[in-house]
């Protein structure tokens, strides 16, 4: 389509300016093709070169599953806890082991929650040592307790073997508060982080991804089925309704 249009444009140019392509008939057309090829190549390049970080294992299931569900949540958000307790645990129990759903967690720590950034740090550090599931459960189960005093380490330590916790602690000790949080879409989540933790770039990347789907808050999720990505959902969905969607998709 683009090819034909350019050719027509070239012919129109030739008609309007007879001297322009008089020497070599068809050279204008060739130049146009080369220019279009260059433009196409340039347009495929990203505006700002961005490298995708290899996020630690904050997922459940196999990436080859027909349904991929990416959840954006904040460990201190009560709606996220309810969504995790009532819906996501059912997904993890019934749809992940059978290879039907690949559940991916993304951090979106909100600034109104004082310890949400730090909790995300703990979860990512635990993911680095392969203890993400234990950390996520511990964080949600004890949300009220650490949400009031900020003592997250106590619950993380209780959720995993001491050797793993030592490795997690070693990662956490490299950083200091504040931790990255989702302040504004335009603000870099790493701004103001004086002593970053090695896992902070993962959190920052998740926050950027959250803003890419324009999430106004948490929880939010995106479902992809065999390459078809549906509109983001910005609220907690009850299990029967989500189950119905999964069953409908899997019946196709």
């Amino acid at each position: 389509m683009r090819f034909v249009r350019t050719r027509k444009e070239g012919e129109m140019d030739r008609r309007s300016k007879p001297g322009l392509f008089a020497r070599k008939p068809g050279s204008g057309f060739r130049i146009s093709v080369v220019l279009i090829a260059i433009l196409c190549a340039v347009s495929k390049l990203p505006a700002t070169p961005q490298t995708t970080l290899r996020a630690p294992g904050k997922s459940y299931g196999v990436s080859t599953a027909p349904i991929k569900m990416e959840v954006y949540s904040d460990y201190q958000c009560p709606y996220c806890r309810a969504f995790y307790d009532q819906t996501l645990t059912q997904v993890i129990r019934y749809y992940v082991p059978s290879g039907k759903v690949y559940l991916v967690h993304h951090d979106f720590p909100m600034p109104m929650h004082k310890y949400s950034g730090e909790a995300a740090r703990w979860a990512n550090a635990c993911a680095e040592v392969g203890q993400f599931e234990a950390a996520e459960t511990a964080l949600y189960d004890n949300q009220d307790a650490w949400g009031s005093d900020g003592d997250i380490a106590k619950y993380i330590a209780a959720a995993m073997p001491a050797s793993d916790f030592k490795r997690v602690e070693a990662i956490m000790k490299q950083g200091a508060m504040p931790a990255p949080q989702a302040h504004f879409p335009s603000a870099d989540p790493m701004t103001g982080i004086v002593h970053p933790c090695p896992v902070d770039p993962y959190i920052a990347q998740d926050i950027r991804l959250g803003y890419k789907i324009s999430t106004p808050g948490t929880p939010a999720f995106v479902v992809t089925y065999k390459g078809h990505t549906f509109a983001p959902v910005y609220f907690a969905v009850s299990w029967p309704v989500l189950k119905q969607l999964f069953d409908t998709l899997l019946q196709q």
Partner: protein
Amino acid sequence: MEQTSRQKTGKILLTIGRIVLAGIFLAAAFGKLKPLAGMPWTVASVKTSLAMFAMGVDSFQILPAWAVSPLAHFLPFFEIVLAIWLLSGFALRVSSLLSTLAICVFIYAMFSAWHRGLAINCGCFGQGGAPIGLWDLTRDAVLFLPLSLAIFIGSIFMRRSKRVESATPVAQHTTA
């Protein structure tokens, strides 16, 4: 039995109004049923759209979980039936009354979600889009509801004037 110009104008306005209202209902039903994410038009993709719409209904947190899916599967087809009914002009008082009631329910659901601070999409014309705001409430309360009400009131007036017209020659005949 000649129609007065006022009656003619009323009839034309009523026809335009019900075509517009039917169009709104058809657009709403289409938005809910159309395949998502570039999927082809198949029974399975429509079922997927309805399952996604069910999530939208669930987001309002008004209905119990068991009632969400039946309503989500009923509503788009109800809108199509209502649109066809409005276009047919048959028993216009009933169809326009049903439309008015349906719009009232939609406004109530949206206002309730907005009042509770739920950042959800209204799902009126399909999934996606901005969370419910004043625009959605204004659109339904200032445009759709008055339109539906006007058709309902207009249909009552039209029926009355028809009755009067049909009664007048009979009276003349009996007195003569």
